[in-house]
Structures are given as C-alpha cells and as structure tokens.
C-alpha cells in the first residue's frame, strides 16, 4: 500500500477546494447520500435541461478528502454531458473502482480519464471504496429521479 497513490496531489487539491460546491440555481433533480459507517452526507443537485443534458451539477456535504475529491471531480466531468452519457460515465467509474483497471468509456477524453484515475488508489483500501463511490451512487439516484436516499451499505453490496 502506498499513501501517495491514495492521496495524490489532485485529490488533496480537490479535497481542499472542491469545485461546484453549493446548491445550484434552478436544479430540478436532487438526491441525498449517506454513509452510515462514518456519518458522511452528500446532497447532489442537478439541472437537467429540456434536451436531457446535465446543464448544471453541484453538491453540498462534508466528508473525507477522498469523498470530497471524488464528488468534486465527478461534477466537473459529468457537467455538460447528456443524460445517457452521464449514466455511462457513472457505471464506468463504479466498474473501475471495483474491478476494471481502466476507464473504458469513450465519453471522456484522455485528460479527463487521467483525472478520474487519480481516484483508483482507493482500490488498495477496501474500507475507503465507499468514500469514493457515495456521490456517484447519489448522482444516479438524482438523475434517474428515483428520489430515494442512497445508503452506501445498500448500494455497494
């Protein structure tokens, strides 16, 4: 195990200064996520426009560096994507964190893939995987308008 792989500079930087933080104007989808193991909460706000494009994507909440960075990076990468494209990126990310070694999706460019791969260090820390996936499960709930509260103890089983 290597702490430097887990706490890469980009993670620390996003953890300290998260992007797209706050409640965005005119959001029409939202969901809450909760990690009962640590008590962390995240709220995801999505503004999906008429063409079903993610026009805006923001979040509120508190958590560890991994969880905040993962959420922040997610908002950067998914903002501006179509509904279908967003779903593909989410499932690609969740696959990468759980098993696959790379991001397979064609939805992201190389720079974006590099950014997202900075989170792959958590694979070596099974107890921390949920920190990285909470926001992504919550985003799924928001855009698919399930409206249910996401609980990592259920979503990651």
């Amino acid at each position, binding site marked *: *195990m290597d702490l430097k792989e887990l706490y890469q500079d980009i993670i620390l930087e996003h953890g300290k200064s998260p992007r797209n933080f706050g409640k965005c104007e005119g959001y029409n989808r939202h969901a809450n996520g909760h990690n009962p193991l640590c*008590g962390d909460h995240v709220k995801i706000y999505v503004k999906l426009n008429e063409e079903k494009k993610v026009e805006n994507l923001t979040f509120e909440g508190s*958590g*560890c*560096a991994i969880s905040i960075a993962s959420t922040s990076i997610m908002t950067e990468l998914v903002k501006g994507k179509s509904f279908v494209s967003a779903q593909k990126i989410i499932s690609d990310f969740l696959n990468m964190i759980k098993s696959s070694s790379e991001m397979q999706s064609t939805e992201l460019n190389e720079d974006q893939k590099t950014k997202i791969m900075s989170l792959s260090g958590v694979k070596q820390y099974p*107890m*921390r995987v949920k920190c990285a996936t909470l926001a992504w499960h919550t985003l799924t709930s928001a855009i698919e308008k399930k409206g249910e509260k996401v609980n990592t103890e259920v979503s990651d089983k």
Partner: protein
Amino acid sequence: MNIDNIKSQFPIFSKKINGKKLVYLDSANSAQKPIAVIKRLDDFYKNEFSNIGRSIHSLAVNATNKFDETRELVKDFINADSKEEVIFTKNATESINLVASSFGKHNIKKGDEILITELEHHSNYVPWHYLRESKGAIIKFAPINEDGDIIIEEFKKLISNKTKIIAITHLSNVTGTIVPIKEIVEIARKKNIPVLVDGCQSAPHIKIDVKDLDCDFYAISCHKVYGPTGVGVLYAKKKWLEELPPYVGGGGMISEVNKNTITYAPLPEKYEAGTMPTAEVVAFSQSIKFMNSIGIDNIVNHEKEITNYALDKMKKINAVNIVGNPKNKAGVISFTIKGVHPHDISTIVDEEGVAIRAGHHCCQILHQKLGLLATARASIGVYNTKEDIDMLCHSIEKCRKVFDL
C-alpha cells in the same frame, strides 16, 4: 506484576501491521486478548468440551462447574451479592435489550418517561427507542456541557413523576467522561427510580462495585475486558430478576413444560435460554484473573499516566483539538485535526501500524451535540505504553505532512 511487561502477554503484539510494530489504540472498541484467554479457549475445546447444565456425564459436569466458576469470579469482580445476580448474555447490547424488554413489558406505559443522557452509545438508546415505538414512552436526554460532563442540575430537572427508569453510561466511549454514578443513583433513590448503568467502557478500566454504586442493573461487554467475543454480563439486583419476566425463551430456562403451562427455571438460568457461549464464558475466567493479577488500582494508575502523557503531548501538536475536557477522564481520547477528516487520519496513521477508530463511535447524538460529524479516537488499554503514544503523535505529524498543514 510489572506493568511494563504486560504487552508480552498478548501474542498479537509480535505481529507486524503494514510492516510496522502494532500500536493498538482501539481498546474502547474491543481489547486484545492475553495468551491465557486464548489458551483456555483452545484447551477447553480440545480437552473439556461439552454443553452445560443438561447432560450428567463427566464432561458435562466439569463444563458446568467451569462455567459456574466464571460466574463466581464475575460476582466478586463487580462485588455482587450473589452469583444469581450475574446473567451471561451475548454482549452488553443484549444485556440492555433484556432490561428494556423485560422491565418495559409491565413497568412502562404510554406517556411514561425514560431518562438517558446525551453521552449514550446507540446500544443504550435504541433498546429504549423500541419502547417509545411499542408503548408510546417518552425518552428524555440529560444534557452535557461542552466539557462532556453531565449537567447534574439539568439532570435533576428532567426527573418527573413519570420517570420510570434511568439508563446511563458509567464512562463515555467518546469523551472518556467518568460519570458520577453514585450521585446519580442517590438522586434516583429519592424518587424510587431504578438505574441501569452501561458499564461497557468502565469495566476494564475502573473499579466496579455494584453494591457501593447501588445501581439496579449493570451491563458489561466481556470482549472489552480482554475476554472473548460473544459474551456479555448483566448484573441485576435479585428482586428485579425474580420479578421481571424472562427475555428469550427456549431450552435451559424452564422448570417445567406442559401443554398449557410453563414455569421458569430459578436464577440465573431463567435468563439464559439456549446453548450459551460455553467455551467463551469459561475462557472469560482468565480475563478476570488477568485483571486481578495486575490489580485494578495498578491498572487505573498506569492508564492514567499514559492518558495524561498522551493528552499533554497531543495538545502540543498544532491543529489537534481534543474533544471534551471532563472533570474525571479515563483513557478515551477523541480528537480532530483541523483540515483532515477523521477517516483520512485513520488511514494515514494505520500506515504506521497505529490502530485508532474514526467515525461517530455509535454516538451520533453526542456528535450532533458537539457539532461534529465524526472524530478520530485513540483509546488506551492496560498494554499501552508511552512509546505507543509517541508513535501516535509521530503518525499524527504525518497527517499534517500529507495534507500540507
């Protein structure tokens, strides 16, 4: 016995964690086991195993006697009046659930009040919540101040004619507050209200004398007292155990069973249904002997020295904030580091072989009160040394470095 050599009795400390010497500071969660306990488990299964209290063959008689010897040791350990007041359970959580259920059945009605505190572990809140749901009882929370001490005056004000039971921790698993149980019981006695004490954190670290405390119920978690998992103790005054209905029904807890009527076994079996964790209870005798061999006063003094050393040293580290400052504090040190989430602290110190806990420690009410979502917690056991604390502080410095603080 030399307190400095205690670590050598614990085989786990010869193991390396992440290539580093193990510094175990998670004893409030569960304590490590001395070799005598491990050997006794092994030995019992190899040479003495049988179920207890049922068959009359030699192995069964021996196992029954050994099981009973632990009960005797527990009785003396907590200074109970008789062995009949010592009930073995699955864990302290079950001990509290037993009281909530059996006491609540006939003694709690709609609108009755249960008084607990903001310090309580979920296991001393959720069982009472069941009564709130099933009976319409009201749960009141006695407030704490910012030091983590219960405000006795406020506590008194919350007692009413409807208060049917007080359930309170002896030692907080977050702030390390040692609660003045004797004072609480004296207040309760004036109104004739029974008191349940959650002794999970206190039993391994301070002297327990249920006669002196005069409490009605006392719950103990054996795995925190250097014993096996799967065993808890419920001490209860005999009059309660005689009066209250049994909790779990099944084999071993009956006197006579007919198609129309069932009578229950005498104490303590009335509350011990089904096959008990026999080997674990037998092996728990070695935990008590281990504690007795050192002496509770020596344990208290040693842990106080290590705790004070830790507090002094940790307070000197910039950005570290110790949670709570109770008047009387045991070796539970919850802390935060400005700019580093407790989960990140735990992962980073773990790389140095330092095991601490991060999260809400099953005390969300307390964390909400303190305005915190989570804390990191270093908790001290009898085997901890000043070197362990040095290593903790060194690894905290590493957190600061990783996060560039």
